[in-house]
């Protein structure tokens, strides 16, 4: 009962959110600004002397300001542009595949059948795996020498030998799309499923009485009701696809040649393989800008449409 000072409601709430907001400010917003700064400098990670910012006794190096040089450099590089187009393909293909597979899974799981709770728990397995493990286990399935899928095709006499899934760059890129979709589509399915179950059963029963078939019900009832969720899933999948790195690291390292190099991978490589932090952060910042745009969309979406009226 005794809390010393009686706080106003707003102040009390601010006090509650403060630790979380401070943490996020210190570990997300500050580095974000610092990264932005880095993208305009000539970073040499080995050099610790030179201009620096003193903050609470901690010396954060600032490096030499080079203006737009890093950005000009990356926009001049044909590899950046080819990676960007490849990323757009990757994003498009992934969003399509993850959404359709997720919707399909949700439609199956929305039916009533024996063993449905079991199948619903299985849904979470691909999604709960670390992408490192996802990559490794798909190597075990797609490998040219010992892959199980190649073994299956051979056993069924569908191929003589094996299919080299990673030989051709386009095929490797599509493998990445599908493996990532295997990992992520279950989450989309969960969202769709939640949406489907909030649709009133009476509407369906009425439609059935009127003689509407399965696909008519899907087209005229389910799909329109799911439209906001469909939009949400697409936005989330788009962001995830733009940022995907770990599977590339495990499965292709951006190769063969640059055929699976996306913008995220190019930026990561520039920063941490070539140790060029300036151009690396510049490349990654172009991605951040895209994400900011998508966040705006997402924000409008969930706050405008889903905020409960009460």
């Amino acid at each position, binding site marked *: 009962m005794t809390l010393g000072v009686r706080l106003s409601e707003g102040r009390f709430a601010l006090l509650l959110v403060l630790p979380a907001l401070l943490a996020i400010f210190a570990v997300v917003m500050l*580095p974000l600004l610092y990264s932005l700064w880095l993208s305009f400098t000539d970073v040499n990670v080995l050099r610790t002397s030179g201009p620096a910012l003193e903050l609470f006794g901690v010396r954060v190096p600032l490096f030499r300001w080079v203006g737009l040089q890093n950005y000009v450099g990356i926009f001049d590089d044909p590899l950046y542009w080819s990676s960007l187009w490849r990323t757009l393909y990757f994003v498009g293909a992934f969003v399509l595949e993850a959404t359709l597979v997720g919707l399909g899974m949700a439609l199956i799981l929305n039916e009533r059948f024996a063993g449905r709770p079991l199948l619903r728990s299985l849904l979470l397995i691909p999604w709960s795996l670390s992408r490192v493990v996802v990559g*490794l286990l798909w190597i075990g399935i797609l490998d040219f020498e010992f892959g199980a899928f190649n073994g299956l095709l051979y056993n069924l006499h569908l191929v003589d030998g094996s299919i080299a899934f990673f030989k051709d760059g386009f095929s490797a890129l599509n493998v990445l799309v599908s493996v990532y979709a295997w990992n992520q589509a279950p989450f989309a399915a*969960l969202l769709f499923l939640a949406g489907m179950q909030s649709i009133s059963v009476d509407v369906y029963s009425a439609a059935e009485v009127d003689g509407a078939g399965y696909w008519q019900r899907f087209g005229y009832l389910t799909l329109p009701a799911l439209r906001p969720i469909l939009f949400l899933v697409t936005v989330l999948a788009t962001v995830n696809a733009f940022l995907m790195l770990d599977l590339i*690291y495990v499965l292709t390292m951006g190769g063969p040649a640059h055929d699976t190099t996306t913008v995220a991978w190019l930026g990561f490589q520039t920063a*941490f393989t070539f140790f060029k932090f300036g151009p690396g952060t510049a490349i990654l910042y172009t991605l951040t800008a895209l994400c900011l745009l998508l966040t705006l969309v997402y924000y409008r979406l969930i706050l405008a449409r889903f905020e409960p009226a009460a």
Partner: protein
Amino acid sequence: MATIAPTAAANRDYRGGRYKTRSVGSGLVLYGLILALALWLIGPFVWLLVTSISYQRNLMARPLSFVPPEVTLDNYRMVLGLVRFHAEGQAARILPSMLNSLIVASAVTALNLIIGTTAGYAYARYRFPLKTLSLFALLFARMLPTVVLVPAFFLMLRALGLQNTLTGLVVIYCAFTLPFTVWIMKAYFETIPDELDKSALVDGCNRLQAYYRVVLPVSGPGLVAAGAFAFMLCWNEFIIAQVLNTKPDTTTLPPVIVAMNGQTNIDYSVIAASGFVGALPAVLLVLIFQKQMVQGLTAGSVKG
């Protein structure tokens, strides 16, 4: 056919008349799809288990036998350091790094539950200045490309002397998990009627007491969902740990598993064993808490 038809018939009572009874044909299609879906979801993971208890020579045999002709625990013995082999140096890192993963993920989960939950409560219940703006910041933090921050983390942690420490990882992981936790908890608290808090206030609690004496005790499912999700994110994270904690024995499990894959002259079956060991804790966690996680996550994503 004969096995399908009775099931379809038995279904009639079970489905409680939501739709019309399925025809035998569509029942067949449905059960075909269910089988395919189950295989698609769990087949690859089961195959990882199978490869991890097989010898490489049987994986390479053509035609391939999907039931392992020989079962062995040799790969696990190698991974757990019970047998000497040429990559034992790398394999010896698996258990210590697993401990590191456990420490980091538990610390992050605990911090999330303390800080993130209170914030989620404030967002659910109160109006306060900067609410909309900070919500947007949270959302942005959640959609942000983590990798853009890694160069900055690298330099900042070095300046703080936190490079190659578990503390550094905990701090950074907190920032990425907090937005999710706040969001999930916010959505969860919104499902708890606020008459509960009000009656607590009437009964003489102050606002803080109303929160932790009355609301928090009935928020178990939400806490479980947020906590399990934060733990899973940390346990599975690879890129940041890989880049920031390069010194052996300071890193978490995923980079060590990737390094197993980078060993020359190592059998895939051994790598599979290390992958399976690494995957199991997160999979079990999610399966145990699936009900709460599904509710919490769908609510946290769909609702504002």
